[in-house]
């Protein structure tokens, strides 16, 4: 078996990919390694022994920063955003399958927030809340700010899903005596369930690590990304790295759990 000689383009792209991986995982590994810094170690290399001291320290009361509280807020906010994104995207996807007056205008209006700089939206929401006399909070103004980001994405995904969804399935269900609700519950919903899981995961992660849109809208209490940012300027111990490691591991766990759920659904679907 003879190998074809690889072209120059192959090597150029390989180098590009290697750099990409390096930029993504290099810093991540540095943080990961430094979070195991010894008790007397500092914020930079070299490692001064290896310990879990900073992980333990993370769960103690901090002089600055409230890791536990901000994590809880980010988690709850992420779940709220996830649920609303899934429900509204699904309904919008269903609505846009029918042609209605102003459909195109409405579509562009709702996806426009994808091109507006996020910090501007954040600033605007903050200003308006102040003007109306409402106190910004992570569960009101920041919640709304996150939805301006996740909903257009969710709607776009549902458009793609329903674009490929043949109406023949629904006609077949109707032909077999299903009511509109039965058609939706027994045919449409199960068939698009994997995509809905995807939309939910997307909504959650977008909200969980959103920074710019939360910056001016979170009010008194910080979400996790804001807290981490605040800590980078105030905290001078490797507890910061421990925090980075824990939150990253948490994100990976969420993704793994979702993949597991999709695999499980798929397995059940194809089981002989």
């Amino acid at each position, binding site marked *: 078996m003879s190998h074809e000689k690889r072209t120059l383009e192959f090597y150029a792209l390989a180098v590009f990919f290697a750099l990409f991986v390096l930029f993504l995982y290099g810093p991540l590994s540095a943080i990961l390694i430094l979070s195991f810094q010894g008790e007397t170690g500092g914020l930079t290399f070299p490692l001064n022994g290896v310990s879990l001291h900073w992980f333990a320290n993370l769960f103690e009361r901090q002089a600055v920063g409230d890791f536990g509280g901000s994590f809880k807020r980010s988690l709850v906010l992420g779940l709220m955003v996830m649920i609303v994104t899934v429900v509204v995207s699904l309904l919008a996807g269903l609505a846009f399958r029918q042609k209605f007056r102003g459909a195109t205008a409405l579509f562009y209006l709702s996806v426009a927030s994808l091109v507006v700089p996020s910090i501007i939206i954040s600033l605007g929401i903050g200003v308006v809340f102040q003007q109306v006399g409402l106190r910004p909070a992570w569960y009101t103004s920041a919640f709304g700010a996150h939805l301006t980001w996740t909903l257009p994405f969710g709607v776009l995904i549902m458009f793609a899903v329903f674009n490929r969804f*043949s109406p*023949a*399935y629904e*006609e*077949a*269900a*109707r*032909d*077999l*005596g*299903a*009511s509109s609700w*039965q058609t939706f519950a*027994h*045919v449409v919903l*199960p*068939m698009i369930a994997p995509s809905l899981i995807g939309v939910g995961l997307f909504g959650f992660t977008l909200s969980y690590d959103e920074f710019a849109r939360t910056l001016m809208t979170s009010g008194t209490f910080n979400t996790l990304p804001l807290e981490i940012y605040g800590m980078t300027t105030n905290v001078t111990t490797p507890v910061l790295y421990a925090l980075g490691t824990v939150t990253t591991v948490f994100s990976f766990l969420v993704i793994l759990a979702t993949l597991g759920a999709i695999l499980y659904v798929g397995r059940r*679907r*194809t*089981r*002989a």
Partner: protein
Amino acid sequence: MSKAAEIDIVSVSKVYGTTTAVEDISLKIPAGTYCCLLGPSGCGKTSTLRMIAGHESISSGDVRLGNTVVTDLPPAKRGTAMMFQSYALFPHLDLIDNVAFSLKMKGVDKEQRRAKALDMLKLMQMEAYATRRPAQLSGGQQQRVALARALITDPEALLLDEPLSALDPFLKVRMRVELKKLQTSLGITFVHVTHSQEEAMALADLIVVMNDGRIEQAAPPRDVFERPATAFVARFMGDHNVISGRVTGARDGMVVFDVIGGGSLAARGHGREPGAPIDIAIRTDHVRIGDAPALGLGFTGIVSNIEYRGATVKLSVTGAGIDDFTVIINDSDFFARPVAIGDAVPLAWDSQDAIVLGHLHS
């Protein structure tokens, strides 16, 4: 499952915005008939089927099934069942649940509906695959499941939208044998949409040839083939040469006409006014090489192509005003007196083989 219903379509039209998909068609399909709606894509055959099924609203006119006017009834209340082109089996359900779907919607309890579904799968010889998903089946197997799912509703008429188009040629021929067998044993009315004249001829008791939203001819296959009503039918069914001309007069019970840019031909038919346009059809296999038995029953043309087909040989002949005239002669006749491309050959046919074609009234 022995009840079959007559389907009566009374001046039905379907209008989408400004385009008319089906224009004022009337058709009676007797109970227990295997009916094929045949035509090119866009001729309105699928719209007609979907209006019978209730998946398309009827712009004007009525559809009656048995003694019930079903025009405004939802699909499941009509006593029809539809089999979709791509079968539309639910990918997330196994075969039993697919077949039992209509019973589940009706609220039949689990044990009972699964037992009935299994019986239906047995009828289609698919019980061995009962717990599989549709994606794990071949095209022919999917079709059987789709049939089982439609027939479990105990319909009086089964509506099939291009049921064989998704199958490879070999399977197509096998599944059409199964369809015919099934229709014969169930005795219910089948309405089958197809664009394949071969499929229609093989299956149908009644062929309905459609074009441009209208019915060109509705008749048993032999009638459609041997006595095509219009030039469209003759061309669409194939194996016919269509020659157009203008009537010049009558002679011995024959209409005489001039081919535009060519000679004079004759065909058996009623007297028409001179100058009226006329089309005739001549079966390609009823033309022979030789001299005409009477004036106007043949012409001389140049052979432009020869195709050997085994049992037959296909000659393409160009004559004055006649562009592409096809002659099918059997191989022994051809090789007894072979001709070559470029030869001038006399072609002839008998008077009963030239059929005068009609026009649709518009």
